């Protein structure tokens, strides 16, 4: 249970950033971060204020070859197919758990079982700074389907709104408010939703942003890639 009491909430956030929580508690905090704005703020507060303590540690030169290994892992050529890449890249963020693995397996299966025609684009959305897959979006000739992987609900009196930022675009375009069912379907693929675009979900007033642009925090984000 994430506490409501501000002191308890701040202590929990501080313990989370310090890294002293045991695995179930840390996982609960990580999962709640996406939807609990107060918790999110408290974690950011501690990340920023505790960060200066890291200068107490002496810097050290990483072993030779470390950069080359990183470079090899992020190399752009020959992107692997989506399913293996998913397994390979979405190393659950902090407390990797069987839960994430099951979610990923379900996801892979779901992609495989998608009705024809096959989707041609896919995006896995996760909370900023985390790898935990939270939403999956697929787009193809039959339109767009965005579905929650794990149950995610917006804060009281708020709604999730989906946005697309086309490659090279400076402004996001709304793809609509996600219904409470956790699933959004569009009959056609908007032009902004293409290879290299970014999808994001922000927290907005119930009917969606009144300004045509996101007004609340971005709680999930992911890149659109070809299947």
């Amino acid at each position: 249970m994430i506490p409501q009491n501000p002191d308890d909430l701040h202590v929990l956030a501080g313990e989370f950033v310090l890294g002293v929580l045991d695995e179930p508690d840390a996982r609960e905090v990580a999962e709640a971060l996406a939807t609990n704005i107060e918790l999110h703020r408290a974690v950011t507060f501690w990340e920023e204020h505790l960060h200066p303590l890291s200068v107490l540690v002496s810097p050290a030169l990483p072993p030779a070859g470390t950069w080359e290994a990183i470079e090899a892992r992020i190399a752009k050529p020959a992107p692997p197919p989506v399913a293996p890449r998913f397994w390979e890249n979405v190393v659950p963020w902090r407390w990797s758990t069987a839960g994430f693995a099951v979610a990923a397996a379900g996801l892979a299966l779901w992609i495989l079982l998608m009705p024809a025609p096959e989707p041609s684009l896919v995006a896995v959305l996760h909370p900023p700074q985390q790898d935990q897959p939270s939403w999956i979006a697929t787009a193809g000739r039959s339109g767009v389907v965005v579905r929650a992987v794990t149950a995610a609900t917006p804060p009281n009196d708020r709604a999730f709104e989906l946005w697309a930022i086309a490659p090279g675009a400076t402004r996001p375009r709304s793809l609509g408010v996600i219904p409470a069912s956790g699933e959004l379907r569009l009959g056609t693929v908007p032009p902004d939703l293409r290879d290299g675009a970014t999808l994001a979900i922000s927290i907005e007033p119930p009917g969606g942003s009144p300004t045509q642009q996101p007004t609340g925090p971005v709680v999930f984000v992911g890149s659109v890639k070809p299947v």
Partner: protein
Amino acid sequence: MQRPCIHLRAKRVISLNGLESGSRGALWLRNMDSETTALSSIGVLIEAVGRGSQVALKRLYELESRRLYGIALRIVQRPEVAADVMQEAFVQVWQNAAAFSADRGAGAAWLTGIVRFRAIDAVRKAGREILTDDPALGDAALEPDVIEKIDALAEAAAMKRCLKLLDDEQRRSIVLAFVDGLSHSEIAERLKAPLGSVKSWIRRGLLALRRCLQS
């Protein structure tokens, strides 16, 4: 046209060639207050990484790898594990940089968070017995050096002032947790104190720090 101005100004600071390509969509993730947010070159680099620039990631590595590797090594204690942590962390930076926004905090703190979480994850998975059982590592010697260095902190005047207000046990517990990545029970072992006391020191220490930092 405010946004491009911020961007150009920031780019001039680090004068990096070859960063500009692809989507600038990540920029909108900042809120309107970003005008007043001091943009560090680290933050600008992370945003460039978010737009797919490998050049920016390499520059980030050049600027930050010694600091971050030091943090990872301190927590995991073994160079080969710390090197793995660096790999995992930078791959995560590559994947998640698009979600970074300056209004969520400084770039350096964001990087530190990723590396610490990776390092703590690695050390908890592997177990820490090898570390605490080795007298050559001098458990007792490791800790005071860090506590003493707090006085020398130039970067964190507020934090330094506020840490001084804490009881000795509270301060040591929090610093050990952050710097060495120790859990509640590991701190209890290190300080030879009951687990309940350590939990309470950290709780009360965090509350006191927060009150002080916000005042």
